[in-house]
């Protein structure tokens, strides 16, 4: 689909798949991914499907924060999910996705890293959160954001036997999320703002802003992308949109994870 065609649709106020400009596709959050992960979630956003999984390891703390555990967020753009993705070391696109999700979690302080400490100075939990797409039909970042939080929220630590982890036995202890940093990516095409771009819309995006917001409306992470600049008016509008949409996604997240 040509950029022109997409623009014509936006002018009419309806996107080619029938959505309004600021409408997300149907979102589903499921937990049927992997019994081997300490926590895992599947997010289905229209035809986009992503998985997030948590594995934990025991390690030594960083010397400057000896009483805090470690969180690592990784993203791998599997060539299974998109004909343009290639095997090999993480692309810059994958690195950006992982870092923006990481930034939201870290800066929101939703995870109490002190609670990931086993023995100060000696032993801490390293929590590895890995994000992978199964099918990429656009807006991977917002899908990864939800999937990552869902995997963290439902994870259970394995049993520890001295220095060894018994991965076959889970305890009832998990990670308490004190906040929910929800990333929403607002995209600008010509003078229009849209959320949740499909794969066909993504090439037409001139600029995007990912805004990670918290329940009280404060912001904890930002990432501007795309080749075109944004004005401060643009930013103001985009942040408003992201906070509003963030509330919507938060409701979806809470109803999906309530009974877990």
């Amino acid at each position: 689909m040509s950029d022109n065609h997409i623009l014509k649709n936006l002018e009419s106020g309806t996107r080619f798949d029938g959505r309004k400009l600021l409408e997300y596709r149907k979102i589903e959050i499921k937990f049927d991914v992997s019994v081997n992960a300490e926590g895992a979630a599947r997010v289905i956003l229209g035809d986009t499907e992503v998985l997030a999984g948590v594995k934990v390891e025991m390690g030594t703390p960083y010397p400057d924060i000896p009483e805090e555990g470690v969180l690592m967020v990784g993203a791998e753009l599997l060539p299974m999910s998109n004909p343009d993705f290639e095997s090999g070391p993480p692309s810059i696109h994958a690195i950006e996705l992982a870092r923006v999700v990481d930034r939201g979690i870290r800066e929101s302080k939703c995870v109490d890293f002190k609670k990931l400490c086993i023995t100060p100075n000696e032993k801490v939990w390293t929590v590895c959160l890995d994000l992978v797409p199964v099918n990429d039909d656009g807006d991977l970042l917002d899908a990864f954001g939800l999937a990552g939080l869902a995997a963290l929220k439902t994870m259970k630590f394995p049993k520890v036997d001295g220095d060894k982890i018994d991965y076959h036995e889970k305890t009832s202890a998990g990670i308490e999320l004190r906040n929910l940093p929800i990333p929403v990516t607002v995209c600008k095409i010509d003078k229009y703002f849209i959320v949740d771009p499909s794969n066909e819309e993504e090439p037409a995006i001139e600029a995007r802003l990912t805004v990670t917001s918290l329940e009280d409306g404060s912001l904890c992470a930002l990432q501007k992308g795309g080749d075109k600049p944004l004005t401060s008016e643009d930013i103001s509008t985009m942040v408003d949109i992201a906070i509003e949409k963030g509330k919507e996604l938060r409701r979806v997240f809470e109803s999906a994870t309530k009974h877990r």
Partner: protein
Amino acid sequence: MTSSKRLDGRGFEETREIEAKIGIVKRADGSAMFRMGKTVAYAAVYGPRDLYPKFLQNPEKGIMRCNYNMMPFSGQGERVRPGPSRRSREIGMVTEKALSSVVNLDEFKNAVVDVFIEFPQTDAGSRCTGICAAALALADAGITMKDLVAAVAVGKVGDRLAVDLSYEEEALKDPDTTDIPMAFVPSTGEIVLLQMDGIISKDELMEAIELGKNACKKLNEIQVAALKKKFEVDKNE
């Protein structure tokens, strides 16, 4: 193990619970999910498509590439480090050989068919599960094939041969379990993958192959049923 039942209560010729589903990756030209017990494989096929760099192209016949990858959170123990390992590359290669014997490579000269096999969850038998999924994904992509391929691991657990080993069985010690992954062309019974870890006599090996062949016939029925199901859905649309 001399008892009449296996650790998980299965009979010695019984596979784990099998599930097959076609069309799980919309963007791919063909895709499938295949599950054997707690091992889940997703396979996606792209192609035939142009192959670059150009010197890799073969004017005589098409090229098929198979990529085997465990997702970082899929394993029983520690996180699986992302990216290829010696193990995953070897499995990709033997998968490629197993499937290329049924795929008509002459039909897409100069081009490539890429098969990506991904595991969200594993519990032994992943290469076999992956091959079953990949064969379905190739068929779903409309690649010309003379048959599907079905695969299973047969093993010697204690002093008994058993079909479709679980992780628990594979990990047994004293005596160590012998693990024999194998793949067949169901219509001819030809063997297109055979590997083994462990000790076994020739007689037992031949018996194991017969057990595997029979099990693969059943797996193949499930594969065919999944493909038919997809076909029927298409007809109603």
